[in-house]
């Protein structure tokens, strides 16, 4: 895993430094800024050195868990990331939970009642969600639920006087603010998982051992819960594993529309400003989590499917 991480980080470092443009040019397109000032800055940031030297300097610091300082505002990269993390994490975990606890039952039930009105209705419903651009849905729901009805706040994650609230009110206030984003985010992602579980469930129901179970007269609840559900979870685990790195990533468009100070905007702004240390920090964490997610998924496979064994 470590060589993989180093490889990923080296390639990313190279790519972002090869991209045209530099942090100094972005912020300083201003006739009041002299040539000397700009060169001064290049030197200050160490951007006058060759790329491989810059990489090794960066790597040395990373080994000490020092992600360096942002070139834009001079703050520690680690603290910039940490302050964004909780919001993104909460929203993503909440929507993941909603997606799981809605999509899987929906999928299973429409599989069980294949061809029924319910099945057709959910199919249409989840595909509408899939096809609706989230920014459009976001704006519509803000306009309707926020401006017209006034049920939800429009944007942001806390009220103006949040700091003066007692703790329970803070929690409620926060949940109230993120409910619209979480709902909109979940709606669009129902389709994938519900379709997966539906298809897989249908496939399993067609298997001989299930037919045998029915034939020998076991109650259907027992067949479903004991025998049919477990194989359905295999693809679900894959998806779960794949969504671990996604937990930390936010969508730029989404966060911009809801004014959520999350990771997606942090990364986007970092790239636009060519804030190399920040971009690298985010990429390394992302790479690490992807590997971790795969690893966890592998472990879960063993649990769900005893046939899978990993030899040493």
């Amino acid at each position, binding site marked *: 895993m470590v060589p993989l991480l180093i490889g990923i980080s080296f390639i990313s470092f190279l790519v972002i430094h090869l*991209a*045209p443009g530099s942090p100094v040019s972005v912020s300083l397109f*201003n006739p009041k800024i002299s040539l*000397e000032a700009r060169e*001064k800055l290049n030197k*200050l940031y160490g951007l006058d050195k060759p790329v491989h030297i810059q990489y090794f300097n960066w790597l040395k610091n990373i080994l000490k868990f020092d992600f360096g*300082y942002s070139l834009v505002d*001079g703050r520690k990269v680690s603290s910039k990331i940490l302050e964004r993390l909780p919001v993104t994490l909460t929203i993503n975990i909440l929507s993941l939970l909603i997606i799981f606890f809605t999509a899987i039952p929906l999928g299973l039930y429409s599989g069980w009642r294949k061809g029924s009105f319910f099945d057709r209705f959910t199919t249409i419903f989840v595909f509408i969600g899939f096809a609706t651009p989230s920014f459009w849905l976001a704006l519509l729901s803000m306009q309707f639920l926020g401006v017209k009805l006034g049920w939800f706040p429009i*944007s942001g994650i806390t009220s103006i006087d949040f700091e003066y609230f007692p703790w329970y009110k803070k929690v409620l206030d926060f949940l109230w603010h993120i409910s619209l984003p979480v709902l909109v985010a979940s709606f669009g992602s129902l389709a994938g998982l519900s379709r997966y579980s539906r298809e897989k469930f249908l496939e399993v129901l067609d298997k001989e051992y299930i037919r045998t179970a029915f034939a020998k007269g076991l109650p259907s609840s027992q067949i479903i819960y004991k025998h049919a559900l477990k194989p359905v979870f295999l693809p679900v685990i894959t998806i779960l594993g794949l969504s671990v790195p996604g937990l930390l990533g936010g969508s730029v468009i989404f966060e911009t529309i809801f*004014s959520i100070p999350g990771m997606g905007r942090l990364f986007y702004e970092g790239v636009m400003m060519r804030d190399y240390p920040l971009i690298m920090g985010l990429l390394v964490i992302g790479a690490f989590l992807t590997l971790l997610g795969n690893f966890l998924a592998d472990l879960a496979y063993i649990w769900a499917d005893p046939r899978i064994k990993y030899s040493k």
Partner: protein
Amino acid sequence: MKNFFFFFIFSFLPYLVFPQDRGDAIIIGSIASPRVLIPILASDSASAEVCSFIFNGLLKYDKSLNLVGDLAQSWQEEVEGKVIIFHLRKGVLWHDGEEFSAYDVEFTYKKLIDPDTPTPYSGDFERIENLEILDRYTVKITYKEPFSPGLDSWTIGIIPKHILEKEENLLNSEFSRSPIGTGPYKFKKWIAQEKIELVVNEDYFEKRPNIDRVIFRIIPDTATLFLEVLAQGVDNAGLSPLQFLRHSQASQFKKNYIKFRYPSNSFLYLGYNLNNPLFKGKKVRQALNYAVNKEEIIKAVLLGEGKVSTGPFTPESWAYDPDFKPAEFSPEKAKTLLSQAGFKDEDGDGFLEREGEPFKFTIITNQGNLERQRVAEIIQAQLRNIGIKVEIKVVEWSVFIDEIIRKRKFETVLLGWSLSRDPDIYDIFHSSKTSPSDFNFVGYNNPEVDKLLVEARKTFDRQKRRQLYQRINRLIYEDQPYMFIYIPNSLSCLHKRFRGVKPAKAGYWYNFIDWWVPLKEQRYKIEFRR
């Protein structure tokens, strides 16, 4: 006696009937988040806006855009402007209680010219030969030669010596995220990408402002920002022309907000690469200027919320020449000039050629600015009508600066300048400013303009300086290194509950400390802890 009594009543009447209630907060919606709250490092407008509440300069612009004293009580120019002596206000306190003095001015100056300070503002201060502290409240500044834009540069916020003296790196300092200034509001809290909260400075040297808190909410999406306005989530926000003209017809808006329209301090232009053989001749550039209908562009792109630009100065500037008329839209004149320059439709395909070479060029503009892309498209269509082929290329900002502008790899660029209040445009049009990272990237060179630009920098008398700039304006317009397109209006709205707002030439923020909200209408009543 009776008369006297009446006089007494009436003179106090406004105060009796309209006591200026204190309290409440103003929520300012901002598209961009500030980066650093140290005035000498802040190069983005969002940072500068927040800094303006926390810090004071030695000078400031009053409501009619004249320079007046701020931290300086008065100033005098000596030796034909080579020397400026500032007499500072006494008894001004920093937010931590220390007294402001000449040493802070000296410290700010030293930081500005320190090579280790990543400041965009060092240019004007490097023309200073010597800064001398005459006493605790008097500073004498000697320039290498008379430098009239120098006064404008002293509007920069002064930073406290006693706090920052030991700071090695200003940008990384704690101070850049929790600044201490002398201004009407004290910094309280900054939640990244979310909001910045300022609270009133009870001891502000002019008076205690009436409004208790100033809160900046960062809302990066313009559509969301407008919905927040409708829901009264923000009190002040910029508007797009479409929002200003149409969306603001919504009843929620009309009931609670007033709209403001000002010409902005910026202009949009098409810059020619003057070293390109195609644009070497003045006639070609003048022809293009005749061929583009700017009124139509303004109507289509800004829905009419703008003005045709007649040169590098905007109508709010004292250097602006109201009598100067821009060239009219006339495709015929354009065609005549082009044929004089040798362009004819030789092969009858509807496009112009010169010696077999078709008249064809590319407009490059930056990504993320839809307005500019639309302008480019309209220019493309209008030039096609007189037989010129135009292509459009949109490039990401960072690449745009490094690869296109610095390396001069363009034929034309569509860009905007926003300028400081001082009309000095030496850096953009003087022929000495053409090295790769200088700002005369079009390569403009007119000895007469050069001479006038230098002279204007040395002239302190505003009447005389204005005449110089008006001549410069005419010369530049004649030469057309840029095609001057438009000056957009800056459009915004403000919640109606604020009283005492008096729009003037300088906008409506200049008297913010006098604004107030009647108790009954206050929206944010939480007693904040100081």
